[in-house]
């Protein structure tokens, strides 16, 4: 979805004449969500003088490893890398998604309220993918949840869900919070469905892809920084263009990638082929000069985190994310975040 967001933005820019008459070109690389791979790719980008800026990385761990390489050399705008560890990693690294230290809190507040006063709903189990993203989001949730944490288990991306679901069935928590991505999410949801585990499932922005399994995902809650149903003209124009091109609705990954691409295109248009000037431009954005993105206005604090974007909880209903379906939409006062596999 990230790639689709980028491609749509590039199409739109080049169709409108490119940047000062020159076409914007994307050099795509897949870091396979691996820090080692990301570091190697980052070095390649830094060494290539034709590359002016980086959109990405998507994954927090990869972004963290790559940020050391970009430091002092090349501007990178992460799309969905939301780990708190990334805050202030380097003045050359920015992100359009807010930090999990905030997103985890928003999700935990939602979880603390959803069950009213029911005793069972005051018990939450936490499963997290054992990487920068999962650890950061799970830790933020654990600290902010008002109730008992019955378990706090690390899982891998392709988790064997059976022992964990069996354990949860034994413990009977009212809420299961999973800080992970689509792969582990679907494995757990399907196993829960199979074992008949009755619990409210909540995931972070990494869960947005679960809508593909309509049956297993139905009813689960997902944190997102993008609302496709937003009535703002720019959002609707983006949603329509996206649907026309790809025949599906865009999610937050696509929206953030679209925003990051257009933001960097704007920086290059203003500052030309100067890596340092591009960084200065991004750092100089303020509330008055914020870039108007489909996921919200974009400008950054000193740690490179975005200010002013929204993050809220949506529910999977009939194969789509419905914002405010449960009647609970948490407006984010300051920042937003997400991370995804390419």
């Amino acid at each position, binding site marked *: 979805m990230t790639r689709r967001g980028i491609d749509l933005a590039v199409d739109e820019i080049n169709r409108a004449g490119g940047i000062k008459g020159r076409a914007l070109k994307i050099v795509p690389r897949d870091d396979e969500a*691996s*820090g*080692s*791979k990301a*570091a*190697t790719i*980052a*070095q390649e980008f830094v060494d290539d003088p034709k590359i002016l800026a980086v959109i990405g990385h998507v994954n927090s*761990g990869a972004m*963290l*490893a790559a940020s*050391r*390489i970009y*430091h002092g050399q090349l501007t990178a705008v992460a799309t969905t890398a939301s780990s708190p*560890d990334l805050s202030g*990693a380097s003045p050359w690294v920015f992100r359009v998604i807010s930090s999990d230290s905030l997103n985890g809190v928003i999700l935990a507040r939602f979880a603390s309220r959803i069950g009213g006063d029911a005793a069972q709903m005051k018990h939450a189990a936490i499963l997290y993918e*054992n*990487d920068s993203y999962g*650890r950061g989001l799970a*830790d933020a949730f654990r600290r902010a949840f008002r109730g008992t944490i019955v378990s*706090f*288990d*690390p*899982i*891998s991306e392709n*988790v*064997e869900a059976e*022992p*964990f679901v*069996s*354990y949860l069935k*034994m413990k009977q928590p009212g809420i299961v919070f999973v800080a992970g991505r689509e792969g582990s999410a679907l494995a757990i949801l399907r196993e829960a469905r199979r074992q008949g585990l009755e619990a409210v499932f909540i995931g972070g922005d990494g869960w947005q892809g679960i809508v593909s399994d309509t049956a297993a995902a139905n009813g689960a809650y997902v944190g997102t920084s993008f609302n496709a149903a937003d009535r703002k003209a720019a959002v609707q124009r983006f949603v329509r263009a996206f649907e026309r091109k790809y025949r599906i609705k865009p999610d937050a990954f696509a929206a953030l990638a679209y925003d990051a691409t257009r933001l960097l295109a704007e920086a290059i248009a203003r500052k030309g082929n100067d890596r340092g000037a591009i960084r200065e431009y991004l750092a100089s954005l303020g509330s008055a000069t914020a870039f108007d993105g489909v996921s919200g206005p974009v400008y950054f604090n000193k740690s490179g985190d975005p200010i002013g974007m929204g993050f809220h909880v949506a529910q999977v209903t009939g194969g789509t994310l419905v914002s405010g379906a449960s009647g609970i939409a948490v407006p984010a006062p300051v920042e937003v975040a997400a991370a995804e596999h390419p």
Partner: protein
Amino acid sequence: MSEATAGTLTIRRLLGLGFAVLILLLILAGIVGWAAIANLSGEVGARFRHANEVTQQSARFSHVITQQVQAATTYLSEGDVASENEFRRLGLEAHGLHRSFTSQRSELAGEVANTVAVDNRLAEVENAFAVAHRLRDLGRTEDARIQAQKARQGVQQLIAELQRVDKANNMAFVRASDELNEHATKRSALLITVIGFALALALVIVVRTSREIGRPLRSLVRHAIQLSRGNLLNRTATPGMPGEFRTLAEAMNHASESLSRVVSGAAETADDVARSAGDLASASKQIADSAGQVAEAVGEVSLGAESQVQQLRKVNDALEGIRARADAMVAGASEVHALAGAIEAEAEAKRSEMDRALEILLEVRSIVQKAAAEVSGLTATAAEINDFVVSVSRIAEQTNLLALNASIEAARAGPAGRGFAVVATEVAKLAEQTQTAADDVVRLTEAVTTRVTTTSRAMEGSAAHVGEIERVGRELNGALATIVAAAERTRQSAATVSSSAQENVRAVEGAVQNLGSVARTAEGHAAAAMQVSASTEQQSAACEQMTSASTQLLVGSRQLKGLVGGLRTAAA
């Protein structure tokens, strides 16, 4: 000399240049050495610090991981919640450490990749243990054991991974150390080359300089020996000599020529000198004589000046006496002035008293005159009284005749006339008594008239006396006025005298001073004259010395002539 050094390479220049280059090279060597050492020690320090940090972090990381695995294993065997919490906590700590690794280590992609691999391996181990823990909680101990086995394999791999990172670090360290070594060797070689070059240059300079000095020095020595033997005809050839030697050789050649010229000229000059010395001796003798005469004359002048000074001193003393007397005169004039003032005041007082006395006298005179007039009036009254008494006496005589007639008639009238006879008697008596009284009055009046006449005469005398007194008083008054005027004039004269006397004193003082300076000048003149006299005497003595010196000169010039004859010269 300057033309010799210009354009020629002098030894000094050669040496200066050579040593400058030498010193520069040595400084260069020093700087290169210092920079190399400083750079090297900085690099070594940085490498060691980095290595130390990496080693410490690795040790801490390994320690945490070991504890974590220990906690996980404990939970598997005993199932206590504390161990699991410890397992989780240590896991987060290990990941945190890894994060600080990533941010602190080298920015090389390879190193970052290595540390990321360690983190991923740790995550796998944790995940495996988590599954094992849940299986154990579910009572599936066999599955749990298998899972734990898998986890332990992961631990082995993790340790291998850590070792790989450490090894990579060590390799990097060894490489760095090799590089440093190589750098040090290169820099040493450079340093040795620079020093070697400097030494070679020094050798060249020494050889060249000794050769440059030796050759010309020998020919110059030969020249000097010839010169010392009195041979002034020898010359040294200069071409090909270094700057300083050429200058020296030219100077010696020049000196030989000059000496040659001087010696031949000296012989002629010696004759001239001998002649001149003779003339000089006689001239100086004449001068000595005339100087003696001058000295004598000046001595007399000096004596005259001294007697003049003595006389001036006497005049001065006299003037001092005059001045003292003038001072006394001033004092006397002042006294006279004061006295005249006192007299004038006194005379003025007396005069006013005299005026009052005169006034009183005038009053007395008028009173006396009035009294005289009154007395004159009394005399007239006494004459009137006499007239009256004469009348009364006549009346008393007629009365008495009447009484006698009456008594004659009463006696005629017999008894009837007795009573009348008695009255006639009584009237006779009365007439008698009246006659007596009238006599008394006459007598008394005469006495009064006498007394009045006496008084009148006395009064007239008094008035005359008073007039006399007045006249004397007026004369006295006039005399007093004269005294006052005279005192006034005396006072003014005394003041004039006093100021004149003071002026005299000042004039005398001025004269004394002038005279003093004149005396001093005269003394100076006397001293100067004495000095002149002494100088003239010295001059006279000097002339005598000159005379004897001239004589010696004459002798010397003859000897010189003899000596010069012994030298070989161009003229000879």
